[in-house]
């Protein structure tokens, strides 16, 4: 059974409420319908109710599969606003929030913030920037986390790592040139993401072109500083480095190069790149030469699960990402 099939099964055991602020979009409504009909999620369509009902009927979908939330309905909107502004450390006040909530993306995130939904899934009509801004403004960052980032999950044929053919890598998509503090945040968030999604015990390697001082220079200094920050912030996590990639994931190489105790060296299941140049090139190498399937990017660092899909994504990919985000949300509740 592929990892995606396993995640589909996991989603079905504990379906989460997923808010779709772009449900009028044909591909998005199809993905919401099919994942809802098959029991993986509880789809909540957020927008102009009359339009959404008309579109669902035109497209031949049973309306009973959906919960439809009308953004023009004042009583429920006011209830959400009251609950939201009562939360600690929210950014927007009533009036500004009410204005932003005319946009279904913000409306959905407010629902999520007050636990009327578990996930907000968007990105087919909104840009990544729109989703990230709304997420930062409404959902906010996790305490102690200084940047939004992402990880991807690679299923690499022939790779025999500590999780079989699977390896989580990040950040290959969002944070361009992280400073040490941000790099530490990426590592911490990645550990939390794989724990909630896959029930892994994270073993996170911070990689660069040096293993424990074998190389020197400012590019390495950033990684060692990030490592120190991450270890101090979260001593409960196994985050180690600085390692070259082979020392991180190949036991025989780790044995030669890492001459001290390490829970991570040679058996890392999470690899953190030093910047986006490395991340982007590496993922493409894994895909091109390793013929890997790469799932994601999964956004991380927010207080709750926010998902941004590619604007050109086919329905099958959207469904996969919806299910992944639902499993993460269920895992976060544990």
């Amino acid at each position, binding site marked *: 059974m592929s990892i995606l099939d396993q995640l589909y099964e996991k989603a079905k055991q504990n379906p989460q409420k997923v808010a779709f602020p772009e449900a009028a979009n044909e591909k998005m409504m199809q993905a919401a319908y099919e994942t809802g009909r098959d029991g993986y999620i509880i789809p909540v369509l957020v927008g102009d109710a009359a339009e959404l009902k008309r579109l669902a009927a035109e497209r031949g979908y049973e309306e009973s599969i959906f919960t439809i939330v009308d953004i023009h309905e004042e009583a429920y909107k006011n209830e959400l606003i009251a609950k939201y502004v009562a939360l600690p450390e929210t*950014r*927007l*006040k009533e*009036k*500004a929030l009410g*204005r*932003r909530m005319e946009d279904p993306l913000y409306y959905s995130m407010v629902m999520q913030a007050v636990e009327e939904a578990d996930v907000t899934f968007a990105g087919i009509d909104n840009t990544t*920037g729109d989703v990230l*801004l709304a997420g*930062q*403004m409404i959902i906010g*960052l996790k305490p102690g986390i*200084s*940047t939004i980032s992402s990880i991807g999950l690679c299923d690499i044929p022939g790779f025999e790592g500590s999780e079989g053919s699977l390896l989580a890598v990040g950040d290959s998509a969002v944070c361009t040139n992280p400073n040490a503090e*941000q790099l530490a945040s990426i590592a911490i968030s990645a550990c939390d993401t794989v724990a909630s999604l896959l029930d892994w015990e994270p073993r996170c390697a911070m990689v660069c072109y040096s293993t424990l001082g074998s190389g020197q220079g400012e590019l390495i200094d950033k990684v060692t500083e990030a490592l120190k920050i991450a270890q101090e912030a979260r001593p409960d996590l196994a985050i180690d480095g600085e390692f070259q990639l082979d020392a991180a994931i190949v036991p025989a190489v780790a044995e030669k190069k890492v001459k001290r105790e390490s829970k991570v060296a040679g058996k890392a299941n999470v690899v953190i790149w030093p910047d986006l140049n490395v991340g982007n090139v590496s993922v493409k190498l894994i895909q091109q030469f390793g013929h890997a399937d790469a799932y994601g990017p999964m956004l991380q660092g927010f207080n709750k699960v926010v998902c941004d899909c590619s604007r050109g994504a086919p329905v099958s990919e959207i469904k996969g990402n919806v299910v992944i985000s639902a499993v993460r949300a269920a895992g976060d509740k544990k």
Partner: protein
Amino acid sequence: MERKELEAKVLELVAASYKKDVNELSMETSFKEDLSGASVQMVALVAEIENELDATLMLADASACATISELVDLVEEEL
């Protein structure tokens, strides 16, 4: 709102969002060089401007402002 009053208000909001003393800031303060803030702080600032001045800014437009003076111009256009 008069320009001077708006400038004073925006300075106050920048100081709160970037955790600076308002007396260290001026219209010429550069976001990149003097405040070196992360995007998270700009998000906080945009939210504060919405709350306090009733002006809804695009984050991309606010982030494109080099100085506080340019941000005041942007807010003025939105009011």
